[in-house]
Structure formats: C-alpha cells, structure tokens
C-alpha cells in the first residue's frame, strides 16, 4: 500500500514537471544593456505574468556593463532566443551575413545625439575631434556622418557612462536622449542645448530599439515568437498606462542586479523611451515596422558609407513588414 502510494506521488510530480515543460516554453531574452527602465516593458510583462499567460517561461539575461559583447553576439552564439538591439545594428549584422530577423520594432524614432564641449550647429565642428562611442555599437548614424562629411573623427570606444566626456578625455561623445544625456544633466546640471547635435532633427530620424531572433528559430517557432511579441507589446502598453508601477518594478529589478541608479533618472528615461515609441506620423505607439522605402534608402547610405558591406532585401530582415507589405 505504501509502495503504491509512493509511486502515485512520484507519478504526480513527474506529470506536474512534464506539464510545466510541455505547456511553458522556456525562452531567453537579452536586452542590449544592463537593467534600466529602457527595458521596463519586459520587466512588467514578466512581473505581471503576460509571458506566462502566453505560455512562455521567459528569462531576461542582461549583458554585464563590463562585457564587450553585444546582444546580437549572444543571439548568434545561441545563448539567447530573443535579442534586443537597434535597428541599424540588425541591418549591419544581416548585411554581414548574420541570419537574424526583426520581429518587433518598438522604437519609432532616433534618440542618438552627439554632445560636445563646444557649440555644434554645423557637423564641420566635429572635424578631427575625439568622439566617444559605445564599443558595442549603436553609433552607425555618426559613422555615416563621419564618412559622408569626411570629418576624420578619432573614435574612442568605451563601454558606458559619461566619464570620458565629463573628464574631457574626449571632445564630444555619442549619447542617447534617454540615457547618457539625462545622466549628464543629473551629474553636471544644466547643459547648453547648442552643444547637442540631435540626429533626429538633422534628417536622420532612424528608429532604434527592436527585437531580433535567429531566422531559423523564427521559421521553426513562429508561434512562440508571436507570443513573445504579443506579451511584450502588452507589457509596454501596461507600462505606458501605469508608469509609476512600472518604475517600481524596474527599480526592484535594478537593485536585485546591483545596478546603481536613482528613480528620478529612471523616470526621465522611461518617459523618453515611451516618447520614442510614438510614431511621428500616426502619433501612436503602434510599433510599425520601418517602411520599405526608407529601409532601401538607409541601406544605400550605409553601404556607401562603408558601415555595412552589402545590400539585402527588406523582407530578409523585416518579417513584420514583409507580412504587411
């Protein structure tokens, strides 16, 4: 009798574990940087159970600030199923032969700025200057500007932070409007707007944050991808409606990951990220894929500037756009 009971319990446990594995698809998502409110939507989706609702067991794995790898590297290495990266990063990677596809275009606008210790109304001001850029990437627009305008910029790679700029180790530095620019204001206070070159205002308003998956994984796991995308969208929509709650979740996540920051900066970052998700034409956060015509135009410029080796078809990368268009 006891033996039968024991076997029954064992079977029950096994069934539970099995059901968990059968009904919960485990996926790993790697955002492009350390924990911060730039990724609030994902934390919220995880915390509020949106992924679970879709039957996904999502692990958010951040790259360390000290690591020189980027999220696409981890995708290529198979260490992640979903990777957060910028659109242009994805375009460059695809051009270099990395088989990845864009399944969700979150950001609709460019946040990239080049902040200098001098007024920068004219890009000529950057000629021959030392400009800091992220080692992991995100600097394609400025690279294009460098090549097209023949500025001869001396690039100084760094991992993160504004130290190189505030200590005057560089003449200027690339910054995002939602992160480093805010950090700069939180550190040194007021900073003249004339010293900020915003690419979005200079006709280079290219969307940024997006989610990429391996092409093969996409073909074999379309349903999973759709679920992830759906839950992620839901997470971001909830974040937009409940920003204070989203900040609470994010701050707790950051503390657990020993990421040092403050709520003021994270709130400002979140507000800016949500603004960047709003489509300029529709005035809605509709996560529209980058339009084909613009993609073609951009790709051409990138190849001309030597930022990427070759052109490729829009549909190869933009699966969301291919479906609609």
């Amino acid at each position, binding site marked *: 009798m006891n033996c039968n009971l024991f076997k029954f319990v064992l079977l029950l446990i096994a069934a539970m574990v099995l059901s968990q594995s059968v009904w919960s698809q485990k996926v790993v998502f790697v955002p492009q940087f350390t924990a911060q409110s730039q990724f609030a939507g994902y934390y919220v989706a995880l915390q509020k159970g949106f992924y679970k609702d879709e039957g996904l067991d999502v692990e958010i794995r951040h790259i360390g600030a*000290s690591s020189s790898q980027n999220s696409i590297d981890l995708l290529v290495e198979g260490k992640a199923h979903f990777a957060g990266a910028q659109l242009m990063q994805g375009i460059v990677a695809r051009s270099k032969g990395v088989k990845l596809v864009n399944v969700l275009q979150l950001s609709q606008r460019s946040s990239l700025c080049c902040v200098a210790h001098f007024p920068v109304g004219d890009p000529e001001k950057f000629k021959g200057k030392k400009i800091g850029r992220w080692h992991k990437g995100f600097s394609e627009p400025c690279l294009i500007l460098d090549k097209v305008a023949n500025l001869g910029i001396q690039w100084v790679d760094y991992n993160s932070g504004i130290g190189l700029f*505030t*200590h005057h180790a560089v003449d200027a530095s690339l910054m995002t409007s939602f992160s480093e620019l805010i950090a700069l*204001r*939180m550190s040194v*206070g007021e900073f003249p707007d004339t010293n900020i070159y915003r690419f979005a205002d200079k006709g280079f308003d290219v969307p940024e944050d997006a989610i990429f998956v391996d092409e093969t994984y996409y073909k074999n796991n379309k349903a999973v991808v759709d679920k992830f995308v759906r839950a992620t969208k839901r997470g971001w929509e909830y974040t937009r409606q409940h920003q204070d709650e989203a900040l609470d979740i994010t701050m707790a996540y950051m503390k657990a990951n020993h990421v040092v920051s403050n709520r003021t900066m994270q709130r400002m970052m979140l507000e800016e990220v949500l603004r960047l998700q709003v489509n300029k034409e529709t005035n809605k956060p509709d996560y529209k894929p980058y339009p084909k015509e613009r993609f073609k135009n951009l790709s051409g410029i990138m190849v001309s500037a030597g930022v990427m080796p070759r052109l490729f078809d829009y549909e190869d990368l933009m699966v969301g756009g291919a479906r609609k268009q």
Partner: protein
Amino acid sequence: MVSLIFIVALIFVAISSSKIIIDESTKSAQLTLDVVSAEIEKDITEVEISTSAGAQIMMAYLNNDMVCDFMVQSFVNKSDLLTASMIAFVEGVHRGDTWYSTYAYRDSLGAIKMKKLGSEDYDYRYMEWFQIPYMLKQPYWSEPYYDEGGCNQYIATFACPIMDKDSNVLAVMTADIPLLHIASRVNSIHPYEHSYMNLVSYNGSYINANDSNGLVGQTLMAMAYESQNEAIIESCQRIVNGESGLSKVLQGSVASLSVFKPLHNGWKLSLVCEYRDIMARTTQMHIMLALVCLFGLLVMFIICYSIVRRLTRPITELSEAAISIAKGNFATILPEIRTEDEMLRLRDSFAFMQTSLGHYISELKSTTAANERMEGELNVARNIQMGMLATNFPPQLSAFLQPAKEVGGDLYDFLIKDNTLYFAVGDVSGKGVPAALMMAITRSAFRFFSGLGFTMGQVMGRINKAVAEANETGMFVTCISGRIDLETGVMKYCNAGHNPIIVMPPSGEPYFLKAKPNLAIGLFDSFVYEDEELTLEPGTRLLIYTNGISEAETRAKELFGDDRLLAWAKEKGAVVPRQLDPDGSNKVERQVVDSLLETVRKFVEGNEPNDDITIMSILFGQK
C-alpha cells in the same frame, strides 16, 4: 513709553544676537567642513600617494608577473583603507595579450585573494577607470560603483597610469576604497539636530550613500531637480561646478544654510544646517530675555502704579469729596493731607470752597424760600385782584384785563344802577403790587362814589382825593369814567389823562372822542375835574382801552399804535352787529374784545406784553 523702549531694545538685541549667532554658526560650519574635508583628503591623499608610488615602482617591473602580483597583494595587505588593487596592462603590452591584469582583493572574510581579470566579459579596455587615466595620462578617481565579483560592496577606484620614460601608458594601477568607511565618517557629522553632510563624486553621485539614507544611486542634481526649488537647484549647481562657498535656501518654511567646498580629487563636500537648529538656543535665549523683560516690566509697572496711586490718592479723594459736595453733602469730610506741598494748598482751597459753597447754598435756600413765599403771596394777590374785577357782564358790555406781571395796575369796573351804566377804565403808573394796591383803591373809590348823584367830574375829583391821600409813592392813575343813560343814550364822561374813547357810530367812521384835558388821578388832591356829555345813537359802540393795547410792540419795537387801532375799529365796526344778543348774553361785545385781542396778539408775534392790557367794549344797543 518705557514699555515701547523696552520692546524696541529687546527687538534690537534679538536681531543683533541672531546675526551674531548666524555668523558664528556659519564660521563653525565652515570649520567643520574644513576639518572633515581634511580627514577625507588625508585618506584620499594616502591612497593617491601610495598608489602613485606603486605605479612609479612598477614601471621597472611590469615585465615581471610575480612582482606585479606581489605588489598588488602587499598593497592591499598593508593598507587598512584598500579592499583591492590591480595592475591592468594596455593591449599588447603584456606579451601581445589583449587583456592581462593582476588583481588582489579582500574577500568577505578579510583574506587576500588573487584573480586575473580581462576577458570579453570583462573588457577593461573600455572601462572608465582604465580608459580615462590611459587617455589623459593622469590619475583618476572613478564614480562610485558596486564591485560585483570582487569585494562585493560599493567602492571608488583610484587609477594611476604607469608610464614609461616617453610618457607612453603601459598599464594602469588601481586602488579600490570601500565607500562605507568614508560614508560612515561623513554621515556621522551632525553639528545640529537636522544637519547633515554630503560627499559627492566628480559627477555628483553620493559617496556617502547607504541603504538607510536612501542616497544609493542618487546624484546631487537629481535630488535638486526633484525638490523643484530654484534656490536648491542653484545651490547644488554651484557645488557640482566645483565652487567653494555658502548659500541659503528656503524649502517650504524651512530655511537652511549650506557650506561647501571641492576636494582636490574632484569630490565635493557640503554641510547643510537648518536655521531653526542654529537659532534653537538663541531662540530659547530670546524667549528667556523676553520673559525677564516682561517680568521686569511687570514689577516696574507695579512699583510705578503704587507710587502713582500714593501720589494721586489725595487727588482722587478730593475728587470724590468734590462730587459728594456737588451732590449737596456740604458736610463731606475732606481727606487729610500731611505733606506740606501743593496738595495741602489744594486741600485748603477745597475746604474754603466747601465752606463758601455751604454758606451760599444756605443763603440761596433762604432767598428762594422768601421768593417762594412772595410768589405765593403775589399769586394770592393776583387772585384777589382778579377776583375784584367785575365779571357779571351785562349784555351791552364786555371787558378783559391781563396784568403784565402777577398783579397789575390796570383796572376796569362797571355797574348798572337806576338804568344807568357806570363804567371806568384806568391805568396806574408803575407795575406790580404797588400799582395793584393803587388800582384797588381807585376801583373802590369809583364804585363808592358812582351812583351817589355826583357828576362824573365830581366822582373823578373824589377818586382823586382818595388816591392822593394814599399816594405816598407819587403814583398816578390815568382814568376815564362815565355813565350812560340806557334810555336816552346820554353819556357823561370824564377823561383824566387816559387814552381817548374810540366811538364807533352805527354809521360813519369811528373816531377818537376828544376830551377836556384833566390831570391824571392822584397827582393833586384839589384838582377840579370837568366832565363832558355825548349823546349816543342806538347802535353806537364805545371802545375803551389802556395803553397796553396802543403801545403793544413787536420784538422790533414797532408799536401797534392809534392808527392800527382805528383801522381795526373801522373794519370791525362794519362787521360786528350793533344789536344786543336776544338771549341776553354779552357775546357780541365779547366778540369785539376777543377780536381786538387777537389782532394785537397777531401783531406782536408772540412778543411778551410789556404793560397791562385792558379792553372794554360797550354797545348802546339798538332795540
């Protein structure tokens, strides 16, 4: 006034002392800041010197891994301040390696461990602690960060480039300081209850952050912007700009003083003190001072009050005595004054006044009593006099007499005897009781001698004798008397210096009846009076009056006069009937008398009569 001076002085003292306290407190705060900054500078400098010295030494031993290991190990071992140290090589310097570093650290048990850091996961080439000293070729203090994988706490790293003789950076040597030690020191500074000290990094991150003060990950400017207070933002901006100084900020109702200065490594130290704390003891002192002053004022008030009361009591008592005397208590006892001063003289004056007043009131009472008696007697005299007047008027006669005073000198009288109407109207010279007595004598004499068969002249003569005999004061009486035969209308009359009779014939104009000039009665007892005769038509009215009528005057001294009298007679004569009232009353003649009275009263417009008034109206009526 004294209270006001006290209060002004108190306010001045309060303001002055407050200013002094604030100035001294500001200096004290700056001194505290200097002391603490010196302590921190000492620790920082110790790390900088030892690390820089180490970097200098290592320049010669960079190619010896063992020496590198030993260096960092003993560096950490020998220093109480350090938790870790590292020598990180520039790419390619160490045998062409991309990364090579030797890292010594204290673990959680305090034991010193070694690691080799440098990989794709830890690419120190792009980290600020390496890159900045590498690019600037200068030492560098990092922003505070959490050292995960090392000592697992918040630290700041001092990084010093190791350069060759050509100033090429070959490696970077670091020293990690746990911020807990510095944070504890800074957080222990509380010169006042609510004061606090902050230490922020080059980029404004709080170095004295811990879980209890909630400053982990915070920056000075973030906190300033969160306050939404312009003064705080400005003050913090000055701090992050590396300024040295002080500022005053007001947040809500709390005013604070902030003193700040930069340290040589780019960190900034500030001390914030709330004015309410600075002023707490001063406020207590001020309150004590105010209470002492109030108490002093109270005591002074009591003393002054006592003195004033003592000085003014005699005046108060004199005042009360005066009131009592004014109420009629002339026997009021005045207060005793023992001092030989003005108060005694005042008291004596009061006493004299009291005595004089008493006498005066007493005399006044006597006089008033006498006057009242006299007035009473006069009223009696008036009543007697008025009682003496004939009032049983026959139908053809009406008369009115109004003395100017209680008793008067006018008279009228009449009697009918043997179908003959005897009449008399007179005016005694003077007024008052003497005139009234003379009037009585005259009237009595008229009444006595009329109807004895004498002529009117003889009657007047006998009246004259009677009056003259009693005339010790030299008064005289103007009088007109007469008799009318009621059958024939023959009137015999005698005018002794009196106003003429106004004759109002039934037809024709009224006129003054001329008379022979007889002397007034009472002047010469032997004067022979002559009478005259007039035959009256039936319907003739006679108006006899005294000069109280013709000399009635307005306030403007305008006299009624004979002309108005005659004009009235003409007007009235035309309207008043000339027949006797069939019911036997004298209302027709009364109407005449009333009419003349009314006319005179209207003329004088309320002016008081200055003489007795007498009017007699006689109608020799038509049958």
